[in-house]
């Protein structure tokens, strides 16, 4: 008989418990409207979490996502205020994400800097660039409605955000589980040396993953600009923490090689529902980091306990 593994089902159990809890606590919780709102407002987190999941699977980390998001927010707000076409803004945003992601990837692969330090550096640099770009304060003005429509618009009475989330997760799922690139990502995360011996171009895979993470973060920034209608240089603080929380809750391993897109989606739902419940129950938003912190800690502890049980033969004391 297969041994019961709590860590695999943990996120689903949490999701079920949260939905049951929510339906008891608030009448408005179990409505289509509330759930479509939950997903509509989780677009940015979804984008960043998918990127973070990929980065974590290859055994890296990307701390720069919050700052990339902020930079692309202010740039796209500036362009939108100047009346630039939305397609052009999209291209500029992708270029920003690509550039920062490529810098991260090159620093990590070519100069052998730890992912943590490299992305910490780009995080500081990009945050500073953001403030330099706006001169400190937010960029305000009247943004064209056509730009705001990219997130506020509806198709067949369903908010665009829901389509974005579904498309992104399906796409990421297909890439990770059905393509050669996806298998290479897992191979690199499972063991770089082995992957190299089997002919995987480890450096290229790594750079590609950081580029994807950068582009997704930049797209999230563009969506934030469209959502709030101003270019706020302070946006995106703590997003790396939220994305890591989503991934860890969703069963993505921080040591690489493990994690699925489905898991990340469930993790996203868990974190978004918690946020939604706290809002419905009027809990101080300042308390949210405390709750998130405790959740990530409990989940990580449960997972690491099980991992420990699996490899008893290794030196346990250290």
């Amino acid at each position: 008989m297969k041994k019961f593994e709590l860590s695999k089902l943990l996120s689903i159990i949490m999701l079920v418990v949260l939905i049951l809890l929510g339906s008891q606590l608030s009448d408005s919780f179990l409505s289509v409207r509330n759930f479509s709102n939950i997903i509509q407002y989780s677009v940015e987190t979804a984008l960043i979490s998918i990127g973070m999941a990929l980065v974590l699977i290859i055994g890296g980390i990307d701390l720069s996502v919050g700052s990339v998001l902020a930079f692309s927010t202010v740039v796209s707000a500036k362009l939108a205020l100047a009346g630039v076409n939305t397609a052009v803004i999209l291209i500029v945003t992708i270029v920003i994400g690509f550039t920062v992601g490529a810098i991260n990837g090159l620093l990590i692969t070519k100069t052998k800097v730890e992912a943590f330090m490299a992305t910490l550096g780009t995080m500081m640099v990009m945050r500073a660039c953001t403030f330099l770009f706006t001169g400190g304060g937010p960029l305000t003005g009247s943004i064209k409605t056509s730009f705001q429509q990219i997130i506020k618009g509806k198709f067949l009475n369903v908010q665009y955000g829901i389509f974005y989330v579904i498309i992104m997760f399906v796409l990421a799922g297909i890439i990770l589980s059905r393509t050669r690139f996806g298998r290479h990502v897992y191979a690199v995360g499972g063991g770089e040396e082995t992957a190299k011996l089997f002919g995987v171009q480890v450096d290229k895979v790594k750079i590609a993953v950081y580029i994807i993470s950068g582009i997704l973060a930049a797209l999230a920034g563009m969506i934030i600009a469209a959502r709030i209608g101003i270019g706020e240089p302070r946006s995106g603080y703590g997003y790396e923490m939220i994305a890591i929380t989503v991934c860890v809750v969703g069963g993505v391993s921080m040591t690489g090689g493990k994690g699925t897109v489905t898991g990340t989606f469930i993790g996203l739902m868990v974190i978004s529902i918690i946020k939604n419940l706290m809002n419905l129950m009027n809990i101080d938003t300042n308390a949210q980091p405390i709750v998130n912190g405790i959740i990530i800690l409990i989940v990580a502890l449960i997972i690491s306990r099980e991992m420990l049980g699996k490899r008893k033969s290794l030196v346990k004391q250290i």
Partner: protein
Amino acid sequence: MALQKNTFIKDKLILGIKEYMNELSIAALIVLITCISPLLSSVFLAGDNLLNLLRQTSYTAIAAMGMYFVILIGGIDLSIGATIQVVGMVSIMMLTSGYSTVTTIVCVVLIGLVIGLVNGVLVTFGKLQPFVVTLVTKSIMDGIVLVTTDGASISGKVPESFVKIGTEYIGIFPVPVVITMIVFGITFILMSRTTYGRRLFVTGSNKVASYNSGTNVRLIQISAYILCALLATISGVLTVARIGAFQPSTTHGGATGMELNAIAAAVIGGASLSGGKGSVIGALFGALLYGVLSNLFPLIGVNSYLQQLIQGVIIIVAVIAAGRNSSSSKIKLRKSNGGSHEYST
């Protein structure tokens, strides 16, 4: 005989220079900046400004020396910025409600101890990554500070004796600078002259070897986190004692506080996130270089955001440089040096 002794001293000197190459190059950079500073700003070399610079640096330097211990054993502590906040908040709250300075300091030191213990225990016994653990404790403490203060500052009547810690001078030096020097002296001796220091080093470079040689690896790791939190506590007390009031940081969430400066200082000073590298002097000099730059930039009219950008670039360059010259020669030198030292005693 005399000749032999001479070459011996010469060898030791060369070894010493090679061993401390990184520290010496930072020191040279600081001296260089100081020498060309009169060309850039007439104010920089004034006595008042230099003392002010030292005072500003001391908060970072103390935190950086604590961070050095954690980085040395291959960990990281992202919670020190939040620890400084909690310590500041608790001490002002206690002082304004009538507790004495001594009681308050004892209390916040205990808080620091507990924070360090929690971090250490979660990392070692919980088998969690230091990065995750300390990010979580940071996030929880940030939340606690925001919920308690609601983002507003706390002020009130604070005893004279507490404010003196932050504002008094001993001789010509401000108290925080003197405390930094004392902390440096203690940690330096700890690292270079005690078994405990050696064990920290070995644990950082190779946990299995350290375990096999009879070190209690878990205890050593926990002690490093406690040391780090305690030094952060000192830094926090000195910071609030300067102003006599507590202002919660507005840039909550994300790693945007003192932890970044401390990590930057330690890494510029030669510490590597994979552990087993760097020195206390390096962390101190790293903090000093950071302090000199953040003091000089506003004087020569560099915008504060541009300053952040330059500091970010400096970190990246420092890490790349550290990766280049770390080709294990330094470790070998340190080991052989340590060996000869043991034989000679």
